[in-house]
């Protein structure tokens, strides 16, 4: 099992999809790292100096140098630790472009509404956002069919890839969203392939123990930011 080489440190918040996807990739690649749980209501000096512009998590600090933005971090890890574990991005340039396209789609069309559901005060806005996520997942059902092809159970084919970790990082929240809005955004009746993929991904070793699975704990934690 490869180690992190120069030390790896990850500044994060336990229930952030953006942090979770980095943790999943670190697990997939068998990299050891120090995890630092940040208090977003009382940000550490390290976080503020490592990400002065956005002051957000995740921040990966590798040998003392910070890398920000979760998708940038994932690609960085894939490039620096190319020998460690599976490649997160495929080798073929066209497939890489396709993976990047869908990853951007996920954070835009699932991520933005997710944020609205968490922080918008009006129930109507939350409901609208949940509907947007449903629509996005319907599109992703088609994308899954195209990406995984005959090859396997993931967007990345036989193994977990870039789109899997990006979309998969929201899985823990889908049950929370259901409790908050009454909408089951990921539903086997609507998107059977994606629903099966969701179970598969959440059960993967790299994701277990990372994705939040206690809905009430997440809601309680969220409340601390809303008060």
């Amino acid at each position, binding site marked *: 099992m490869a180690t992190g080489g120069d030390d790896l440190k990850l500044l994060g918040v336990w229930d952030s999809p953006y942090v979770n996807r980095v943790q999943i990739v670190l697990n997939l690649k068998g990299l050891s790292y120090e995890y630092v749980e940040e208090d977003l209501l009382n940000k550490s000096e390290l976080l503020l100096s490592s990400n002065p512009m956005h002051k957000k998590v995740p921040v990966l600090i590798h040998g003392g140098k910070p*890398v920000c*933005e979760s998708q*940038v971090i994932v690609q960085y890890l894939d490039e620096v630790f190319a020998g460690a574990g599976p490649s997160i991005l495929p080798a073929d340039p066209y497939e890489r*472009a396709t993976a990047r396209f869908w990853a951007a789609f996920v954070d835009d069309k699932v991520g933005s509404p997710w944020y609205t559901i968490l922080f918008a005060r009006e129930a109507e806005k939350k409901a609208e956002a949940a509907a947007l996520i449903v629509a996005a997942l319907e599109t992703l059902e088609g994308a899954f069919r195209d990406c995984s092809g005959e090859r396997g159970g993931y967007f990345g084919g036989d193994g977990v890839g870039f789109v899997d970790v990006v979309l998969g990082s929201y899985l823990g929240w889908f049950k929370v969203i259901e409790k908050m809005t009454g909408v089951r955004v990921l539903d086997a009746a609507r998107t059977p392939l994606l629903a099966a993929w969701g179970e598969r991904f959440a059960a993967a070793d790299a994701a277990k123990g990372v994705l939040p699975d206690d809905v009430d704990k997440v809601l309680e934690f969220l409340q601390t930011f809303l008060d």
Partner: protein
Amino acid sequence: MAGEKSLVLLDFWVSPFGQRCRIALAEKGLEYEYSEQELLGTKSDLLLRSNPVHKKIPVLLHAGRPVNESLVILNYLDEAFPASPPLLPADPYARAQARFWAAYSDKVYEVGTRLWKLKGDAHGQAKKEMAEVLANLDGELGDKAFFSGDEFGFVDVALVPFAPWLPSYEKYGEFSVKEKWPRLDAWARRCGERESVAKSLHPPEKVDEFITLLKKHYGIE
């Protein structure tokens, strides 16, 4: 020059996102067919088939296969044409920085659009944000010739298409880039001296005319 390996760019004349691709293709010495798309009217079948999810330009067609999203296209060009001059640096840490700042540069357009579209408090908020964005970019550029150092590269390609929009944003935002961030102003001029940039960008007056057209289109006074 048609054929299996041909490159076609579906684009719209004034789009800074399209211009990123035009500049990249020119820098890399890659021949391609430019295909102007109708955006305000009826979109072509080719565009709708190539980018069914967003129905937007730019779209790069390579041997008929579509690549969408300007920064994805830029990454793709580096990877699919490894013999051509690279846009991204070789070092992974430098690449991560370049990707971060290229993505950040999108904010210039996003905030700038709010500057000319919105009024009142929202406009005030956009003014504040634009100042932050430009200050951050100026800070990152520092005293370097280009964002990654001495060589024109990925971040420069991503950001420079917004340069002809800045005079309009200055007008709507009541600020002067030359006054507040002279290094950024000098950088824009320096980039403009490159053939790839000079040939791809339109003068600020044309951009401003286009904004006026868009305002009419959206019913904004």
